[in-house]
């Protein structure tokens, strides 16, 4: 009755994408001290960049007149489907390019944003970023070539030419998981390096860090460049998987969902971020299954989701106030100290 394998693959792809967001949010907010309430802005920007490149660029290179068949019309979607099945090399090439472009553009966007946000007080950083997310959404709604309120459709999934939905989704899953693994390693290494230590010191007390010679604004903007860029990559992956983007997908709720993940998992630690994403995406996906029973249920999953997430969060925080997997002090320091034992006089 229910397609178990299909469900698992679908869940794991969502898990991979949301893990990227949770890991990067953990890096910038849990460790770097930038209260990012506008995560969705970077996620959405990455998704729109991916959507634009994977449709307009693909159509233009294949010789379709974009002005007659823009990707938000039926003609455009039909043309895109035809191209993405017949020309795998081009589709994959543009997809990889779109990931790189989205990393760079979103990263630079984040880097530029640090200019205003580092100069307002710590408490206002969150609100500034939150409003940036809403501003971007208003821009999407009012811009015709990104589809306005309807958004863009027919974004090709880069493995669509495999001609077997299951197999192409497995390929996409493997791709997402490998990108997730890369992001995890980067975040883990930064956290346990001298840079991670400096970031944690800045989060604890930025004035003392400043007077210990740390160029606080510069370090923050560097890390924000990285995390914003990586959230953009997650956005591009998301757009190509769900094959459409529209402004309603990038509301504030997405940001707070990611926050809930790192709160449940334990902020500061990348393991915690991944575990939080695993739990909450499972809840989300299971709830979406209820869609087929709407006629028998007195409510929809939209009303049930906040209740369940809130319940999980309360239970976890009562039992584990620092989250399920809080950060442990770096092992490397301990092992070096152990090596030196007895040699210090």
């Amino acid at each position: 009755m229910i397609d178990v394998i299909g469900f698992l693959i679908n869940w794991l792809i969502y898990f991979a994408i949301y893990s990227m967001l949770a890991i990067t949010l953990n890096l910038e907010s849990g460790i770097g001290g930038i209260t990012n309430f506008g995560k969705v802005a970077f996620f959405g920007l990455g998704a729109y960049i991916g959507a634009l490149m994977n449709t307009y660029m693909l159509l233009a290179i294949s010789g379709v007149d974009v002005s007659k068949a823009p990707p938000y019309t039926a003609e455009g979607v039909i043309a895109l489907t035809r191209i993405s099945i017949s020309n795998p090399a081009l589709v994959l090439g543009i997809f990889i390019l779109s990931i790189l472009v989205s990393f760079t553009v979103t990263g630079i966007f984040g880097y530029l944003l640090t200019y205003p946000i580092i100069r307002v007080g710590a408490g206002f950083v969150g609100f500034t970023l939150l409003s940036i997310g809403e501003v971007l959404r208003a821009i999407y709604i009012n811009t015709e070539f990104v589809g306005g309120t309807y958004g863009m459709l027919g974004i090709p999934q880069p493995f669509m030419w495999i001609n077997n939905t299951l197999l192409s989704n497995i390929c996409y899953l493997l791709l997402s998981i490998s990108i997730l693994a890369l992001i995890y390693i980067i975040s883990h290494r930064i956290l346990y390096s001298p840079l991670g230590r400096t970031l944690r010191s800045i989060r604890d007390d930025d004035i003392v860090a400043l007077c210990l010679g740390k160029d606080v604004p510069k370090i923050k903007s560097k890390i924000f460049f990285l995390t914003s860029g990586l959230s953009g990559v997650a956005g591009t992956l998301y757009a190509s998987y769900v094959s459409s983007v529209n402004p309603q997908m990038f509301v504030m709720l997405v940001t707070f969902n990611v926050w809930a993940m790192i709160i449940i998992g334990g902020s500061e630690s990348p393991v915690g971020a991944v575990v939080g994403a695993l739990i909450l995406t499972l809840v989300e996906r299971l709830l979406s299954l209820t869609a087929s029973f709407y006629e028998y249920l007195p409510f929809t999953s939209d009303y049930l989701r906040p209740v369940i997430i809130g319940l999980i969060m309360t239970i976890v925080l009562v039992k584990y106030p620092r989250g399920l997997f809080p950060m442990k002090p770096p092992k490397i320091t301990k092992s070096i100290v152990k090596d030196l034992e007895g040699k210090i006089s």
Partner: protein
Amino acid sequence: MNGEIQPILNTRNVSKYFGGVRALEKVSIIIPEGGIIGLIGPNGSGKTTLFNIITGFHVPSEGEVFYKLNSKFIRIDGLNPHEVFRLGIVRTFQIPRLFPSLTVIENLLVTPIGQKGESILNAIRWRSWLEEEKSLIKKALSLLAKFNKLDIAFKYPAELSVADIKLVETLRGLMNPARLYLLDEPLAGLDLLTARTLLKFIKEIRDTYKLTFIIIEHRIDLLMEIVEYVYVLHNGRVLASGKPEEIIQNPDIIKAYVGE
């Protein structure tokens, strides 16, 4: 001050007003290179404000601060705190401000500037910073060992006694190879033995590395054991300056401290 000793830092007519409050008024001090200079005065006399101006936390309302770098004098008032730090001026805080979520050893390791592992690209390749990290840890441990405090290396600041917090705060400043140290009440709360060890250590590293120290301290008896020159601030002005033995006998200073 005699002419043969080269100054490393001097302030010229530095004043600082906070609204109507005159925290400092025309303060001119000269700090000789390689000296241990005491800065004393009753509460509210402007000692910490002077430190804040030297280290870039406040911009002086009037006056200039000069610092000798490569045998040239440069103006450092108005620079950012991290820029001042990079010139080789380190300060500690009167009320200790350790990083609460870092262990003692991590607190010490944060300080050194220009660590290789602080750039994103190097942080990802951990082999690039491992050697440097080892030598820094060695330095931190030997600092702790000097005070018989190796056992607190992996404790968090919240688990420490007041005296240990104070000591770690000072040691954190000493972790970085600087030329001029501004210590704000390093002895407050320390037991006599640790306080003497710290003073002996300061003198020792001064002699070895030719460092300069300015020390704000209320425990004048202990301070006078090591300082070579003392400035006394009172109501934002330099009330007196001189060798410790002259200062102790100066009736004006006794009056400033205990009243008439």
